[in-house]
């Protein structure tokens, strides 16, 4: 419970991330975003709550990609650090948090970027999703893909999906395959890999042999780069498609031969429109971490923390119930780098997603 310490000088927000272990790269990038946000929000001495200026402090807790650790993180952050809210990313191991953040005296808001609906269907009054609901936008995306295929002569006949075997990958893949099937494509071939796998030949060989000419990958930027390289080695000459986690510019900097992703499709939306908050975010990020490759998960966590803090500002208190009630309003004011809209009662959010085609000359074409 954060009510008890409203007189303390700091507002604490927990971040439960896989900082070490097989998903450590995701965890570390997510942490960078939060570090950056902490700097930004505290630049002018923090925010005003209960009439006092307070600094925001983000407290990290490593899950090592294990549920048991995530649970003890939850207990620690709630009972030791009395956080008002917690940020979690799109990995399974943080799901058990939803079973005890409602415990009397240790309530906290959770903002997660999980892809499955577990959070929003758990009837947890303090949970919110800072992510796109794949179930709702995928039918539309399937149609967009069919349209682009026809209009731009992409020549896509068969789709294959390569994904990591965690909840995000499986949720995206499920909904994407359904969406494309409805849009008239044959059932997609899929293959999964475990976090930490670097040799994707066993996955790619059957996918390529299936005759697929679009290889869709809801994976991190590093994994995408590796998959592109190995698919090309195996003689794949079809198109690639990538989802939100990676932008074309980011990916180009990671693949040895940028021409490999010419003609690729990216899930796109407000975040890469010219005047998006994401652009500011990137500039700040480059300034703070000049040697670090940019990864979109940093911008997501940045916005998640911003959302909680904005809600606290809005509510003017750290009382969890009030903070949660202020969240729909706060979403519009917060950094919101990926342009989410419409927070519903159950914590669900939605947003606009479309496709972007990378032209051979390197320019982009939006497909809306």
């Amino acid at each position, binding site marked *: 419970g954060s009510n008890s310490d409203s007189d303390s000088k700091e507002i604490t927000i927990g971040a439960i991330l896989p900082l070490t272990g097989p998903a450590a790269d995701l965890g*570390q990038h997510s942490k960078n975003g939060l570090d950056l946000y902490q700097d930004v929000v505290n630049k002018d001495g923090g925010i005003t709550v209960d009439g006092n200026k307070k600094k925001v402090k983000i407290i990290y807790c490593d899950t090592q990609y294990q549920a048991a650790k995530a649970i003890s993180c939850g207990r620690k952050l709630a009972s030791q650090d009395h956080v008002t809210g917690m940020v979690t990313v799109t990995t399974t191991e943080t799901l058990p948090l939803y079973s005890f953040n409602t415990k009397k005296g240790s309530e906290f808001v959770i903002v997660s970027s999980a892809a499955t609906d577990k959070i929003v269907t758990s009837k947890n009054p303090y949970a919110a999703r800072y992510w796109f609901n794949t179930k709702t936008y995928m039918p539309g995306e399937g149609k967009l893909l069919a349209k682009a295929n026809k209009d731009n002569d992409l020549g896509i006949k068969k789709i294959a999906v390569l994904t990591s075997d965690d909840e995000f990958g499986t949720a995206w893949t499920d909904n994407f395959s359904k969406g494309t099937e409805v849009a008239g494509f044959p059932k997609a071939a899929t293959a999964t890999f475990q976090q*930490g796998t*670097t040799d994707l030949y*066993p*996955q790619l060989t059957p996918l390529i*042999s299936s005759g697929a000419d679009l290889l869709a990958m809801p994976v991190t930027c590093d994994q995408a780069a590796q998959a592109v390289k190995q698919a090309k080695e195996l003689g794949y000459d079809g198109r690639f498609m990538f989802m939100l986690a990676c932008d074309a510019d980011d990916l180009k900097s990671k693949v040895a031969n940028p021409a490999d992703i010419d003609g690729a499709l990216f899930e796109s939306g407000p975040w890469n429109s010219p005047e998006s908050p994401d652009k500011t975010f990137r500039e700040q990020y480059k300034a703070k971490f000049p040697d670090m490759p940019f990864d979109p998960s940093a911008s997501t966590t940045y916005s998640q923390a911003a959302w909680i803090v904005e809600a606290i500002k809005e509510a003017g208190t750290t009382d969890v119930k009030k903070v949660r009630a202020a969240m729909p309003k706060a979403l519009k004011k917060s950094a919101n780098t990926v342009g989410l809209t419409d927070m519903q009662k159950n914590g669900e959010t939605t947003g606009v997603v479309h496709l972007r085609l990378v032209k051979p000359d390197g320019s982009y074409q939006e497909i809306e």
Partner: protein
Amino acid sequence: MGQITQTFANGIMLGSIYSIVAVGLALVFGVMDIPQFAFGAHAMIGAYITWLIADASGSYWIAVVVAVIALGFLGVLTQVAIFDPLRKAPPATMFIAAFGLVMVLQGFASVIWGADARRVTSAASGSFTFFGASITYQRLIIVIVSAALFIAMFVFLKRTRTGISIRAAAESAVGATVVGLRPRAISLLAMSIGSALAGLAGALLAPVSQVTPTMGDSLSIKAFVVIILAGMGSIGGAIVGGLVLGLVEAFGSGYISLDWRDGFAVFVLIAILALRPEGLFGKETKAWR
């Protein structure tokens, strides 16, 4: 057709990678009976060194050489600091110590280099197609190196006096000292060769895979499976063991189930241990008595 030949090629390439780590392990575990579980982590360190040096010098091959030498030194260090003091400890203690070493090396790598994947560009980029299978030159190099290493190791251990000395020192430390050998120096040598080979595996693997702190995790287990598949003392058998394992994995995950990719190695392992514990090519060895 394309999928079958490609799967076959994948299996051979994968098996060769296992084999290279297994060569070092065959020496250190198969011959000296030291369960060096950290060779996977050694390979990972080797890959990072390759990345560092290739970045700095611009030459992949220089980086490979440096990585091999550096890992040789790491082997000496490991032997002096960990395994040598445990000579007389029960075998389990060595195993556990090796686990500890894995953790230290992995922790070390993630503290120093972080979790981001590093990429190394191969000196021999490009690929060719062979019976419908696409094979990159880098992977071809791995296949050739692993075969060459096995022949070299076989000759070394069976024909050269240094090689026989390593086997002798492993058999009986007292026996070795009375004939005037220095068993501790010999085990240093053997361990540094083993580690250097693990480093070589890492260096060759770096352009193929990505370089991350956990990249070596499965290598250790696979290498142990290869050694057991082949039979402890059997150096020559190990190349076949590596290839068999690679093929089983490639075809298993290609045609049975991807999810069980690591499971196939385990099935092979358990089948071998239950049915023919001396391995495919091993004679019955002292470990069974």
